[in-house]
């Protein structure tokens, strides 16, 4: 954080160091930032803290006085009950399996395509890149129904993929943003390394496996984090293709469970569903806040 504290005018913002020396500016900036911090905490952290509290509060307390800071009694059993009796464990592991498969498919497609298009560079590469990027301009809604019918009757397979995890895993691979990210990263790698590998007799597969993949750990990390978060958030597509409740992820199951289970247990289930994304965010904060998360904005 040191660089943010420094007052050198090279990284100044709207306020100059002369402005900052004026008492009135300093005081009003301090007050504004104080108000901003409190509002951000209330709006950003408030609902999460409320959820955390209510997950271990008896239903009656939550209903009678939803904003009480301390509940009358702490009911840790909510979490256990949600986990085992309501079978949140199953939906949690379904979500994990879906996220893991989406992650693998996205990493495989993005790295192999990036390697072929950015390092090996076939002559038809430009056309292919254009076709991949072109899909970014087609709103997802256009794909919804035809993709659904493709899953029901996939080419060559002769067997519906409905109610299999493949129905979520495979379409996730068609992510143009990932291919673009990996291509840009591979373009920035020094080409001498690949030339040297070739001189030493490494073929394209060996170069990919032993040189390109180890060098691209940072970008694979970026793709991985967003693949997992994206899969964890996804709702409409798994809702359509995973009709069997035993296979459904948390996002699909939670809205339906709401009707059957008690409020306190339901809130505990919501809290459990939030833990992994929040943990990922806390661990990879820099990545999320660096603007690499623009993908989220682009995909709305």
């Amino acid at each position, binding site marked *: *954080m040191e660089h*943010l*504290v420094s*007052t050198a005018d090279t990284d100044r*913002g*709207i306020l*100059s160091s002369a402005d900052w020396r004026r008492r009135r*500016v300093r005081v009003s900036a301090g007050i504004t930032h104080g108000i*901003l*911090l409190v509002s951000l905490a209330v*709006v*950003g952290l408030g*609902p999460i803290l409320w*959820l955390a509290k209510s997950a271990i509060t008896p239903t009656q307390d939550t209903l009678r006085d939803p*904003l009480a800071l301390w509940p009358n009694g702490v009911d840790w059993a909510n979490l256990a009950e949600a986990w085992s009796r309501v079978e949140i464990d199953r939906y949690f592991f379904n979500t994990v399996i879906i996220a893991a498969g989406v992650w693998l498919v996205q990493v*495989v*497609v993005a790295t*192999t*395509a990036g390697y*072929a298009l950015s390092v*090996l560079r*076939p002559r038809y590469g430009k056309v292919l890149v254009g*076709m991949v990027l072109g*899909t970014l301009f087609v*709103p997802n*809604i256009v*794909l919804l*129904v035809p993709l659904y*019918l*493709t899953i*029901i009757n996939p080419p060559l397979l002769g067997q519906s993929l409905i109610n299999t995890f493949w129905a979520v895993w*495979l*379409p996730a*691979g068609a992510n143009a943003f990932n291919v673009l990210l990996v291509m840009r990263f591979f*373009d*920035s790698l*020094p080409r001498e390394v*690949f030339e040297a590998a070739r001189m030493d007799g490494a*073929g*394209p597969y060996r170069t990919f496996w032993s040189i390109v993949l180890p060098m691209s750990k*940072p970008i694979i990390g970026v793709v991985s984090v967003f693949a997992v978060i994206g899969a964890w*958030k996804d*709702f409409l597509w798994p809702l359509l293709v995973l009709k069997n409740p035993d296979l459904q992820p948390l996002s699909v199951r*939670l809205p339906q469970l*709401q009707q059957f289970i008690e409020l306190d247990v339901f809130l505990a289930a*919501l809290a459990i569903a*939030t833990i992994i994304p929040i943990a*990922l*965010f806390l661990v*990879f*904060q820099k*990545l*999320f*806040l*660096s*603007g*690499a*998360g623009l993908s*989220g*904005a682009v995909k709305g």
Partner: protein
Amino acid sequence: MTQIAPPTAPPTREAAAPLVRPARRRSGGVRAWATGDGPHILVFLIPLFVAFGVFSWWPIGRAVVMAFQRTNLVTAPTWVGWQNFENVLRDPLLGVAVGNTLTFAVLALLIGYPIPLVVAVLMSEVRRLRGLFSALAYLPVVIPPVVAALLWKFFYDASPTGVFNTLLGMLGIPKQPWLQDQLTAMPSLVLFATWSAAGGTVIIYLAALISVPPELYDAAEVDGAGIWRKVWHVTLPQLRGVLLVTFILQIIGTAQVFLEPFLFTGGGPANSTTTILLLIYKYAFQNSLGGDYGAATALSLMLAVVLALFSLLYFRLTRGWSTS
């Protein structure tokens, strides 16, 4: 895991040379292709061809065809010309859905567009704990949307003891019906959508604010500009490019709003929150007579074409405004 760097390095000069040996490349021919890298490149492209071919390019093409067909899962599709489009355009719900989607988009612009900008400008002047500010602003984006929506649905409880109504009561404001009333249902959805998305936009604006050249502020001060004039004459003009892009992205995003009306209200009360996407979903997947896939694709194609035309028009009209 903190070493992860955003992949912002621009392509270097030497990256322009293909790795394929030049002599072989120039000679061309099937033989040279087969003995060179050609087949290996295709092997590496298999995942791309499968993923995009089967799950992107093919469905996109199929959407255009399906819009002119009557498709069901039993018999072969039959051509029906513009029938699907006519059916959709004659549906009295379409006008309602378009109106609701426009309402959502306009409300989201009024509420959701200025907030991230103001927050980002204020945050860019924070000298200590800026990481904490950004993390707090971004937290709602991290919560899975379904969880957040279900949580807010509880907050929106219309009884006096609902969470938001209790909060309003503390401020002396009468209780609101929130999702229960035709007038307040849509603004409630917009409020949630703004809360869940604003953090991402704040981060985009912050990145843009940091790259405003400090010399511009120095120059403005030499000309005697105060703080507000610096914001108005330097900061905002410098953000023009990114503001133009976030504007159109927000329009495109709000035109496809689905999750909020689907989870909060199911389109009610009295269809006051039925959006275009909800209508498409109803055509295809909530039809007791079997999915009307033709109508659903026809409507989604129309929406895509309108959005594309709007974006083209928008970029043409604003071409002169953008910086750089």
